[in-house]
């Protein structure tokens, strides 16, 4: 059986694909790659289908050996990559010999990187997806974070279409990351000075961040709202707990919550936030749902164009 042995599993490593939407009413979060464009670009370069899974790992530390010859590419947060000790460009498709050592070392920007292996990671799908939600113990390899010594089954490798397009979605360092949000939920019930404070000040990303969400810090936001009845959360929801430090909810969020919410960061900006390290400065800016659609459309158009150009 084709497999990938993890000598060093790295930090917060999980198997991820595009996730399992459609299960929120059962309390199951959507999961999926935190940086879905990085996932998509790797899938494309290895000629994968959209439902094939990659290994998501944080802060660049990883060592693995495939049992058979395979192609790989690493996308997302840039890493220093080597194959059998030889430094190589992570965003190019490489062939690794049987038993060859794939080693990634600490990157300097971004958080989540993706190791794509030809044939995809072939753990058993759970509720229609291979994505892992570690808090729920669902999907991936035994439902949890990957550990040193784990072995991941690999799918059969098709003849890959090598179409390297480096620089498609490299995490770029930004001075202040703009988080565009659609106001909603309890936004109208917030005191006007809180609505202004949310948009006028610069927050920073704290170390309290994971696949569930990321906590920001700045001048505390006062909501003057008592606990609410539980209702659905959504990707990017800006939740404001009693301490006034906003939390942006991401892929493995609780599906319902009772904290006041000022609205939600648009999904395109969520992946840029997911790739932000502690200390990154961020600013919230209100946009309308229609403006969010046009951002989405442009991003979609840009991605498709890039992918089509790369295919030639």
């Amino acid at each position: 059986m084709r497999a990938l042995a993890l000598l060093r599993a790295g930090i917060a490593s999980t198997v991820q694909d595009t996730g399992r939407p459609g299960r929120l009413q059962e309390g199951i979060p959507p999961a999926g790659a935190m940086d879905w464009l990085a996932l998509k670009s790797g899938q494309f370069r290895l000629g994968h289908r959209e439902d094939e899974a990659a290994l998501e790992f944080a802060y660049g530390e990883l060592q693995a050996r495939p049992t058979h010859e395979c192609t790989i590419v690493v996308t997302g947060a840039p890493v220093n990559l080597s194959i059998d000790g030889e430094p190589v460009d992570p965003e190019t498709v490489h062939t690794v010999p049987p038993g060859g050592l794939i080693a990634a070392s600490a990157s300097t920007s971004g958080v989540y990187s993706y190791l794509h292996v030809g044939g995809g990671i072939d753990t058993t799908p759970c509720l229609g997806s291979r994505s892992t939600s570690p808090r729920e113990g669902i999907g991936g390899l035994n439902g949890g974070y990957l550990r040193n010594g784990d072995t991941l089954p690999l799918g059969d490798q098709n003849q890959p279409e090598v179409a390297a397009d480096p620089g498609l979605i490299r995490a770029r360092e930004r001075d202040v990351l703009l988080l565009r949000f659609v106001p909603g939920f309890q936004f109208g019930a917030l005191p006007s000075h809180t609505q202004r404070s949310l948009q006028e000040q610069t927050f920073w990303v704290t170390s309290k961040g994971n696949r569930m969400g990321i906590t920001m810090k700045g001048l505390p936001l006062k909501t003057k709202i008592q606990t609410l009845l539980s209702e659905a959360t959504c990707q990017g929801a800006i939740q404001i707990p009693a301490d006034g430090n906003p939390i942006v909810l991401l892929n493995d969020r609780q599906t319902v919550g009772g904290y006041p919410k000022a609205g939600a960061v648009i999904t395109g900006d969520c992946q840029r936030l997911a790739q932000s390290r502690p200390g990154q400065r961020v600013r919230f800016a209100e946009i309308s749902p229609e403006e969010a659609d046009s951002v989405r459309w442009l991003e979609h158009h840009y991605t498709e164009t890039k992918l089509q150009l790369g295919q030639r």
Partner: protein
Amino acid sequence: MRFEVGPAGDLGLRLMFAASPAPALTHKLLSIQKAAQQQFANSLTDSVVGYSTLTLFYRPLTLERNRATEWLMEQAEAASSFDIDPASRDEIIVLPVLYHPSVAPDLEWIADSKSLSIDAIINLHCGADYFAYATGFAPGFCYLGEIPQQLATPRLGAPRPLVPAGAVAIADRQTAVYPCESPGGWRLIGSCPTTLFSLNSAPAARLSVGDTVRFQPVSEADYQSLRNAL
């Protein structure tokens, strides 16, 4: 009944009624959810009923938001969708519970603080039928209400890092069973041996919004044999 319709992020629409939670309200939300699943079959990825909300999530660039908003407002105004589905009203899901300090770390504390006997607590908790208002927090976790006022107890100051699967809990006027091991801040008064969430079942969650649940006390021996039967 007053309501509002607004965005839930860039891929969601949210309908909220300005009304207190009630089974009739939940049934209205469920009927609109069902209609929305048909009306927008090609666009919807998810829909979630909360205590007083219905939130729809759709695939990018597939929904005419203005038209969907109008449709939601029409549905909210229509009184005819208020009917309670008789089928859902008849079935009562009975969950066996062992109420014993060995599996319920807060039971004696609640008895002391409320000057109630443990038997009195059991009678109060088992004496009412509970309505399933919402699911979430964790897979298969179902918010049930309302417990008698005499039992109402605030949450723990700091959540327990680990609540075992099957723990029967109360918080304020709500009650629930933790389907899986997880952190939790509710007070634990018993243990239920029934599996409430399994990835091998369809649906994975035993309880869903709109269900009616009744708790039934069982002896330690029956509890053990029910557990062993799993």
